[in-house]
């Protein structure tokens, strides 16, 4: 986001104008990354020497998991901006972000289960990483439920912000769960300070798909924020018309 002053985006009108041109760029970028990523990942990259062709689920499972955690960090950031700095768009951003993150977590869990069945012999195992990602999914669901649990929208959003911030402790647990416990899940092979221990032929499609997923998340989020802002304006307009009668 070089050259874009985030404080300038705090103005809802300016953000709306930014989102109108920025969101399609994210969307097109996602498609531009996904097309070669899928081609390389599904067709031309080599099969794993142990797992064979099933390793190709990795090109969907790993980026979905990364975006799931990133989306929660964004949710916590939006919650912090709304609670601490009273950012005018914090409420809207958090409300828009939670369902996307929940869906990404669900995709990661489901693709992980599909991958686990042929390779580990089981759909699910209660090890540290799977359990903590499942807890992340429940945190998302709890956030969505809390947002909608009150008759007054603003009260629900504020309570949900607090919940989002408290749940941030889960993110380091997920990240380091494969280091802290003996788990069945693969240890970290990409995000290490030394060179990644994964072959470039597999790393390239993985990074392309990761870029695609992150850009897709950006597109989804910006579009949902715009939609939420429009819906609020419509409801405010309806209220004004009712009061004017």
């Amino acid at each position: 986001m070089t050259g874009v002053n985030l404080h300038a985006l705090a103005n809802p009108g300016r953000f709306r104008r930014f989102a109108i041109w920025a969101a399609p760029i994210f969307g097109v970028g996602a498609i531009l990354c996904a097309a070669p990523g899928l081609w390389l990942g599904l067709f031309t990259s080599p099969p794993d020497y142990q797992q064979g062709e099933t390793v190709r689920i990795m090109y969907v499972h790993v980026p979905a998991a990364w975006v799931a955690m990133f989306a929660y960090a964004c949710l916590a950031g939006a919650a912090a901006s709304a609670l601490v700095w009273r950012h005018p768009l914090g409420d809207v951003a958090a409300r828009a972000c939670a369902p996307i993150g929940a869906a990404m977590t669900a995709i990661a869990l489901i693709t992980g289960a599909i991958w686990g069945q042929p390779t580990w012999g089981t759909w699910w195992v209660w090890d540290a990483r799977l359990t903590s990602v499942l807890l992340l999914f429940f945190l998302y669901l709890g956030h969505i439920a809390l947002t909608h649990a009150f008759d007054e929208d603003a009260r629900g959003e504020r309570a949900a912000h607090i919940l989002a911030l408290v749940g941030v402790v889960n993110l380091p647990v997920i990240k380091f769960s494969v280091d802290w416990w003996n788990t069945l899940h693969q240890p970290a092979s990409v995000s290490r300070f030394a060179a990644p221990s994964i072959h470039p032929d597999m790393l390239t499609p993985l990074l392309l798909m990761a870029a695609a997923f992150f850009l897709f998340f950006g597109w989804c989020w910006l579009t949902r924020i715009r939609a939420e802002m429009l819906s609020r304006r419509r409801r405010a307009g309806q209220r004004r018309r009712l009061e004017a009668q």
Partner: protein
Amino acid sequence: IAATRAVFRRELLLAGRNLGDTLAPAGFFAVGATLFPLGVGPSPDRLAAVAAGVAWVLALFATLSAAERAFQDEAEDGGLELLLSTAAPPSALFLAKAAALAVTAIGPLIPVAVVAALALGMPIGAAATLCIALALAAPSLASFAALGAALTIGARRRGVLIGLLTTPLLAPIVIFGASAAEAAATGMAAQAQLLLLGAIACAATPLCALAGGAAIREAVR
């Protein structure tokens, strides 16, 4: 400080007057612990294998059912605004309520849990470890449960919502607590798990106090 102590004493007094309500979670624990052998079958090996986990899950449910009552009457009759108008910081008030929850809800649970664990076939040493683990985890269990209650003041379907919100946060406590009792049952040292439970209690209580104070302030806005 005086306000915080007053809130804590008032909670204990109210709990003492409504003993039926206060001991209901312990009763729920006992009923649940009776249902498990009926469902799982009376085979002693199987029951002993699950005794630690059953005790901890039921303790979680019992705490959550007690938490639903935590901020109920204040929210209904406007006592929350009165409390917040005192000089005490909201996090201190929240801590007073959480401490009262720990004493009134988890306190009666501990003897019931030990008896239930023995009835499910846990050896006595492991039951003692279970007692210690519950006592160590009581601050964090109560803090998270009270935080769930504070966040949902005035919400619809409050009971279910508290369960949904606090389960991800309480899951590590249940994991380590059950692991402590399990380790003691198989003769290994449970020191690591107990230390971790204590650490979680030390870390969770201030965090929940901060969040709970904010939640109470949001509830009266």
